[in-house]
């Protein structure tokens, strides 16, 4: 039971990280969509693009990791969710493909028409993907997933609760993205864009708060227990979410953007964990499926806990490196932005293998440590694998 609860917590943690990191990337697409015509939308689109580019793929991996944990630890529930909510999941998958491809292609095509076309694909799918993901989570929270589903159900994700949670996801993505983009603009000293995204963060924050409240009030029927628990043992998290939202709005109104990113992320995390705490120990509310009887044996759960510890140990510092380099604007301008031959730009000039200095040197050393660690881990794995045969 402890192992099952621990893995449940790990699953919720990965969902949270996907929400506050990957969700903001979708939100960036949302603001791209609403940025207006070519000229008017140029500056915000550029900021959005530069903020998302180096990080969206790494952020996206949290989704894959959450899926893997879900099907490994709770295979029975996983199969039921995937069967019942097949349609919105297919639509979300389509959105993921179009979002990623549209974003990557827009960067490399030349000509306004093509950039517009791929940009529209990127932006529209950034809107649809979180919505459909939200309806799936909504179907789970609303108790619409049967224990052993054998066919898809439209009603499971088109009921008011599920749809509200779909809209809530879109709102939260937009809120996070706008708040993060205020910070990006502030760091570049761009007051105009700072104001631009402040207004949008306020609107999205208000909308997200309203949607959260509406969802809370809408929970009834099979989800009545969830509502009961959200106002019971999950109440502190609900209050925390509300307070962070109000704090962000207050800081925005005062024009002091320091710390709002952490607060906004904390608010979204509080909502996710509020849901988790309220639902515990049920995995599929309305059925007898709980964390501990959803399929996986104890040894699998233990292996997942060990794996997650390894992820935290290896991925934590790597993400820190990525965000630190990105934050110091060292990750701008791939090959695409440089005139290659004859250019005497930084790394390109092969004149002399210079001693790399400062932050760049630290990045190199950190990568070297990871590389050596990987080789060692591989050797150990091979040795152990060889012994176990």
């Amino acid at each position, binding site marked *: 039971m402890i192992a099952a609860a621990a893995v449940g917590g790990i699953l919720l943690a990965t969902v949270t990280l996907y929400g506050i990191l990957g969700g903001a990337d979708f939100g960036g697409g949302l603001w791209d969509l609403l940025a207006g015509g070519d000229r008017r939308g140029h500056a915000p689109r550029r900021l959005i693009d530069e903020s998302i580019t180096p990080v969206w793929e790494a952020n996206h991996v949290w989704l894959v990791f959450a899926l893997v944990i879900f099907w490994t630890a709770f295979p029975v529930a996983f199969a039921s969710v995937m069967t019942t909510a097949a349609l919105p999941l297919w639509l979300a*998958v389509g959105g993921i493909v179009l979002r990623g491809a549209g974003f990557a292609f827009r960067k490399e095509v*030349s000509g306004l028409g093509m950039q517009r076309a791929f940009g529209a694909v990127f932006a529209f799918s950034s809107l649809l993907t979180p919505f459909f993901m939200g309806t799936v989570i909504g179907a789970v929270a609303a108790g619409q997933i049967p224990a052993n589903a054998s066919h898809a159900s439209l009603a499971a994700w088109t009921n008011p609760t599920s749809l509200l949670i779909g809209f809530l996801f879109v709102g939260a993505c937009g809120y996070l993205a706008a708040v993060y983009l205020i910070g990006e603009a502030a760091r570049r000293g761009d007051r105009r864009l700072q104001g631009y995204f402040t207004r949008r963060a306020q609107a999205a924050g208000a909308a997200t708060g309203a949607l959260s409240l509406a969802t809370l009030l809408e929970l009834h029927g099979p989800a009545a227990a969830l509502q009961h628990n959200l106002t019971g043992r999950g109440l502190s998290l609900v209050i925390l979410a509300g307070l962070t939202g109000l704090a962000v709005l207050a800081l925005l109104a005062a024009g002091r953007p320091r710390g709002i990113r952490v607060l906004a992320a904390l608010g979204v995390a509080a909502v996710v964990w509020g849901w988790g705490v309220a639902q515990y120990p049920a995995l599929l509310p309305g059925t007898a499926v709980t964390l501990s009887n959803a399929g996986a044996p104890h040894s699998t759960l233990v292996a997942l806990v060990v794996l997650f510890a390894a992820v935290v140990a290896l991925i934590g510092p790597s993400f820190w490196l990525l965000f630190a380099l990105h934050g110091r604007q060292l990750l701008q301008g791939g090959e695409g932005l440089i005139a290659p031959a004859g250019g005497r730009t930084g790394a390109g000039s092969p004149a002399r293998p210079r001693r790399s200095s400062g932050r*760049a040197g630290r990045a190199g050393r950190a990568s070297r440590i990871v590389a050596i660690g990987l080789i060692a881990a591989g050797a150990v794995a091979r040795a152990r694998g060889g012994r176990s045969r």
Partner: protein
Amino acid sequence: MIAATRVSGEVVPARAQMAATLGFHIILACLGIALPTIVLIAEFIGLRRPDQVAMVLARRWSQAMGVLVAVGAVTGTVLSFEMGLLWPGLMRKYGAVLGLPFGVEGLFFFLEAIFTAIYLYGWRRLGGWAHWWTGVPIALSGIFGAMSVIAVNAWMNQPGGFTVSHGRIVSVDPWQVFFNHAAIYEMPHMILAAYMVSGFTVAGVYAAGILRGRRDRYHYTGFALGFVPAAILTPFQIFVGDTAARDIAQDQPVKFASMEYVQRTSSHVPEWLAGVYANGHIYGGLKIPDVDSLLVGFSPGTKVIGWDTVPAADRPPVAWLIHLCFDAMVGIGFLLLLAGLWALWGWWRHRSLPRQRLFWLLGALSGLAAIVAMEAGWVVTEVGRQPWVVYRLQTTTQAATTNGGVITSLSIVLVLYAVLGIATVLILRALARRWRRGGVPETGVPYGPQPEIPDARGTRGTSPGRART
């Protein structure tokens, strides 16, 4: 009963969809695994010698890698979803077992994504060797990630490492799941294939340029950086493949029987080159007596198990497809070996690559050929395992979704992936054209994000980039 017929109705489109999406993604996966190494070799030479041409190639390949990694990341995600959307029966029963290697793969996917971002976007501001080192974790995690995914496929061929009680899995041994018996040969076989696909594809691009008369150091360097590693690995791949085939004759005799047209268990089994099996006859094809027995056990008297050992329902459905794909894979492997030997001979005699047009034609086609061989290999291993999804434990029919409408998702996926594939190729070609024109990208389009290079168009005073230098 009605449910049963409906189930079997969805298996064929579900398999087709899995084959299409996996067949598409696997090409990008190969490039994801091995292309970083080739780029790192180029950058290493560029830094070490120092060599301006190698450096330019490394930077340009990075830009192409940015597109390929993005498409690979999203098509890989599709596969993750399809595990549940198409095969809920498999996941419900065995998710707790085969999920573990997938989890390990997730760890390496993370490392790959993070360091790819640092490497690709750090070209300008992380200088020299520091930048080179940020690429090394990509190459390593590509290899380890591939090992993890292959562990899952190998486990489906040789399931083990778990105990069942009352129809439920009660314990799992992760090490035995990961390093199952088939993993020992599938892992090196696929990783070598990834390096061959990437190396020959890079070589093919520049060989095509050389064929069009672009005979300069830039093109020869690009060709060599891809061709040399791939050609060196080819003989090792042939050795690994040969060993794998012998193991399959032991572990999965029915698959092997389909690969080699072994209809009855016997000794002195002939080797069939090509030929189409239908209704108990083999049409066309070259029959070489005793050679299959010789290959399996090094003696003509070796007994080889035929497909007559299992009832017809337990045999793969299309033996001719499996056999022809196997022959295609092996044939291409030897053709690529020949290309490598030709280059070696040229280097040994003249200290230069061969001048014959035929060699460059072979070089230009080598990338495509390697991809065909790799896909054919996947057809052999996947179709050859049918009717099982988990060998001898679960049939593909039991694993498939009970939802209708897979035909619809299959049709949409086919259209979407066709567009995606064409767009990827067109964009890479457009990139190459832009590089040839002189390298400075056409930027400053008002809609899209604007780089710092000053441009007459669209820069309308409001541009915020001035804060940075």
